[in-house]
């Protein structure tokens, strides 16, 4: 078994001089290395014409967390809290996700990543859970809370790949999002829920490893469930 090459999607921000930069939180890099993978960062600028070439070179993909997906991608409801969209990132991630969903290489979606997966496959999102979901519960313990703050339990569906990996019916997670899955894409199966019914994990049942979670395992890396998820993902990518 050779060490698998894991492409990690990234965001944009300006540096201290106002110059545009590609950036990704180091927590993703650390967890991939810890689990035995070789991380590399995918810049969002890469045009669609290069995505197949890129996909060929990788053994697995992490769709990372980040700002909101542009609402035009899922006919979403405008809301004052919606961040300014990063069109290049939306385009790259949605395109790569479609390729990955059809392919056999493992991919793992985290936070924005589960939303990307859902949108890429035709689902849609609450653009602000607290205003639009029936229970109006807070999921955005962000940005003024510690990233590892345990915010709520999630119940994991027995028989799912996620349950196989985590081995527990209920785990405690952090929660750093204000949007969430509204209509799940028809190809996806929901595999975990928050107490208010928000979908916390989804997977592609026919895919060797097409799994996404709404929380951030990379910020609670000492939890057995987080380690199990990264280890299973890297092990699948190494096959």
């Amino acid at each position, binding site marked *: 078994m050779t060490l698998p090459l894991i492409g990690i999607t990234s965001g944009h921000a300006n540096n201290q001089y106002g110059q545009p930069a590609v950036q*990704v939180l180091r927590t993703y890099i650390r967890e991939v290395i810890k689990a035995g993978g070789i991380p590399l960062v995918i810049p969002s600028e890469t045009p669609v014409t290069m995505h197949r070439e890129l996909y060929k070179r990788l053994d697995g993909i992490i769709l990372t967390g980040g700002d909101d997906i542009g609402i035009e991608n899922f006919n979403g409801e405008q809301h004052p809290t919606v961040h300014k969209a990063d069109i290049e990132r939306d385009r790259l991630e949605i395109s790569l996700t479609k390729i990955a969903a059809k392919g056999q290489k493992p991919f793992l979606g985290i936070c924005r990543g589960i939303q990307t997966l859902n949108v890429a496959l035709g689902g849609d999102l609450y653009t602000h859970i607290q205003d639009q979901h029936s229970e109006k519960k807070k999921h955005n313990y962000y940005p003024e809370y510690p990233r590892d703050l345990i915010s709520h339990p999630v119940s994991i569906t027995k028989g799912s790949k996620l349950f196989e990996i985590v081995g527990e019916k209920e785990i405690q997670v952090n929660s750093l999002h204000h949007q969430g899955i509204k209509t799940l894409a028809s190809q996806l199966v929901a595999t975990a829920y928050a107490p208010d019914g928000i979908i916390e994990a989804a997977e592609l049942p026919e895919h060797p490893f097409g799994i996404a979670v709404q929380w951030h395992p990379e910020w609670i890396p000492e939890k057995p469930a987080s380690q199990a998820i990264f280890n299973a993902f890297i092990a699948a990518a190494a096959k």
Partner: protein
Amino acid sequence: MSHPLIGITAGHSLNKHGLPIIHLLRTYVDATLVAGGVPVIIPSELAEGNWKLLYEKLDGVIFSGGADIDPERFGGETHPTVSGVDAERDKLEINLMQHMLDDDKPIFAICRGMQLLNVAAGGTLYTDIADQVGEEIKHDTSYDMPRNSLVHEVRVEEETLLAEILGTPILKVNSWHHQALKDIPPQFKITAYSPDGLVEGMELPDHPFALAVQWHPEWIQEHQPMRNLFSAFVDASRLNGKG
């Protein structure tokens, strides 16, 4: 293979919430894409066994600009202006560069990258040009000026790969560095000088493509010779990938 895979080294920084990130100015990415390469960013966190495996999959590597190399890496004079030393990045880049010097995949080294090429091969640096060389030419352009400001001339040596690519013996360049090459190992050919005599470019004649410049061509892509640098590098990477 129409689009070679180009690894680009990167720095570290903190995001707006103070959390540690990997950081690369997107000008490198954009210039690589325009030249037809598929850019990916190499995290400095990779241990040797890991970057070697990643390197096997790459067709060429850009050593990007950034903060100062630790003066201890080349027995350099400490100076109060030395800043932003990143031990993880120094380690990855120096080891990767040394590995690449014995191999045949294309290397394109920019600003810090050229300094790194020199240090990795056993050369040294002036750790502050103004103090140790002089101020005839100001190489650290003020940060309130645009990054594409053409601030000084460069004279390109004839019969070099650089001259062939640029197609012009004299050109004006941008300049964003306060350190510069001092002692240069003999295997390198110096390819360009600024008017004060500092080295602005060098290459390795015994290597298929190991090209270094002290200025920032990725910020002045509106000029054809600067686009040529990226296309020559990506073309060489494509050829290498096929071989």
